[in-house]
């Protein structure tokens, strides 16, 4: 029987407001982590290049199918949305891989043992992958506009839909990155999960053409809401874009919470004790 541990009195909670030089130091550390993660992504450019090029090929080849089924204007819109949703979900590999690599190679704990605040580490890791995710979406929409004649009624609404979707993707990717135990698990999660979420949400095929049960369960998929947000933005529907974007932010918060709770437990030998 072990004796009870005497806990020291709780320390007073103090909110420390960093001094200006502390802010500069925090910015410098965050900048260093952003730079380092950009280098890591560019040193292994295969996944990034594939996520940027493949959707354009897919869109170029398959847009006539959508146009034949839905007419020129609606068909192009559906083709762009299908491509954007499907391939941005597959791009979760960039986010999840960025987190899982830190865990597998034990650098996560080393970053935690540095002077960087958790927020600095998170922002430093998030900025490069967010830039990649947004670049992918801008490329797909840009291709749709320039090559296929897609019309965008409201650029600000489209930007809002893309940014909120990127935040949801980021949070989902981090959750996958902290939950997966290996790269093969991560790969299975974004391959299978990505296709299911985009199909279920009516991004690949309009929900009207899907079985009735799919229409009922579609709202549980973030793919449903991003497709709704993008459609609303393309036709200039502010209310539709805002409500769907709010739902995407809800998904982002939920996935972020899952990731934070799992990350708090840590990994390695201490977590196994």
């Amino acid at each position, binding site marked *: 029987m072990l004796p009870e541990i005497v806990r020291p009195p709780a320390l007073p909670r103090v909110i420390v407001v960093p001094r200006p030089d502390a802010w500069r130091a925090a910015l*410098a550390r965050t900048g260093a982590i952003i730079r380092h993660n950009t280098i890591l992504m560019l040193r292994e450019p295969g996944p990034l290049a594939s996520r940027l090029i493949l959707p354009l090929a897919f869109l170029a080849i398959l847009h006539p199918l959508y146009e034949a089924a839905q007419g020129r204007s609606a068909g192009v819109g559906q083709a762009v949305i299908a491509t954007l949703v499907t391939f941005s979900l597959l791009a979760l590999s960039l986010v999840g891989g960025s987190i899982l690599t830190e865990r597998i190679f*034990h650098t996560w704990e080393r970053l935690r043992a540095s002077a960087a605040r958790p927020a600095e580490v998170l922002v430093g890791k998030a900025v490069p992958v967010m830039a990649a995710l947004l670049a992918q979406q801008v490329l797909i929409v840009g291709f749709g506009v320039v090559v296929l004649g897609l019309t965008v009624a409201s650029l600000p609404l489209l930007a809002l839909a893309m940014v909120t979707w990127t935040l949801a993707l980021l949070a989902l990717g981090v959750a996958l990155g902290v939950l997966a135990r290996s790269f093969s698990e991560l790969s299975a999660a974004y391959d299978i999960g990505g296709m299911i979420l985009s199909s279920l949400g009516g991004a690949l095929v309009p929900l009207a053409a899907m079985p009735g049960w799919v229409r009922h369960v579609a709202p549980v998929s973030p793919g449903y809401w991003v497709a709704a947000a993008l459609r609303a933005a393309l036709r200039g529907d502010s209310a539709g874009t805002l409500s769907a974007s709010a739902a995407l932010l809800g998904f982002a918060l939920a996935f972020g919470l899952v990731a934070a709770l799992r990350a708090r437990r*840590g990994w390695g030998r201490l977590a196994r*004790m």
Partner: protein
Amino acid sequence: MLVAEGLVKRYGARRALDGFDLTIEPGEIAGLVGHNGAGKTTFVEVVTGLVRPDSGRVSVGGIDVRRDPRGARQRLGVAPQELALYVSATVRDNLRLFAALAGLRRAAAHRAVARVAEELQLTDVLDQRAGLLSGGQQRRTQAAGALVGDAPLLLLDEPTAGADPQTRAALLAAVRERAAAGAAVLYTTHYLPELADLGATLAVARSGRVIARGTQDDLVRGLPGELRLRLGGTEPPALPAGIAGRSRVIDGELRVASTDPPADLAMLLAAGCSLVAVDVRSPSLDDLYHALAPEVSRAA
């Protein structure tokens, strides 16, 4: 620079730390030794703020780690036990990140990276990917990440585990230089000769607490050394009663645990032993370690 008092850390029924006390002064290299599970790595993780102790306190440069973990971390250079490198990045990229996290700006970081690379013989591989380096080079890169920021407290957790002699020599030289410049160093290892090379003070941990602390001379003093004797004649002689209980024969060599070799030799000669060869071994850190942690001796 480092003060730990009464640290307790419990995982379920197991106490990883059980009243762990340790103080390290600036310029001191403290060797922390102990068998696996003695609490060495848990202690390092408590100092870095990665693990919260259940009770006790630890401060780095006067900063309470529980109250201000980030402030304490700004004074630390850490080389964890497990290899922790960005394998797809170059050695330079790895070191530049840790220099920046230690607060060094561009030019200063560049100079610090070049300096530590030269110290640890990494200059030729600075632009190679860390994943393509040999095991020894990776170990040196790991240690360089801890040294690059010139932190006032270095926590080096088994930095030479599995390392080749070149890596070990380079690393020990760099650690000595940092200590000479005023850094406090906590150095955990299973290779006791390294601590003798470093001139480190010793802290022996067992079951989550430090059971012996002091200089190597202080701790070794009073331990028995060993007389190794080759005896003449065909029949083994009858040993004096005062010696028989302390002796054993290994490969035809009589070994006598002895705190007073001249007196024991005189007793053997007086008993009629014919000595062909005599070797007097002073007590070593190994003897100290085995005396304080007998379960290690039994396991060996």
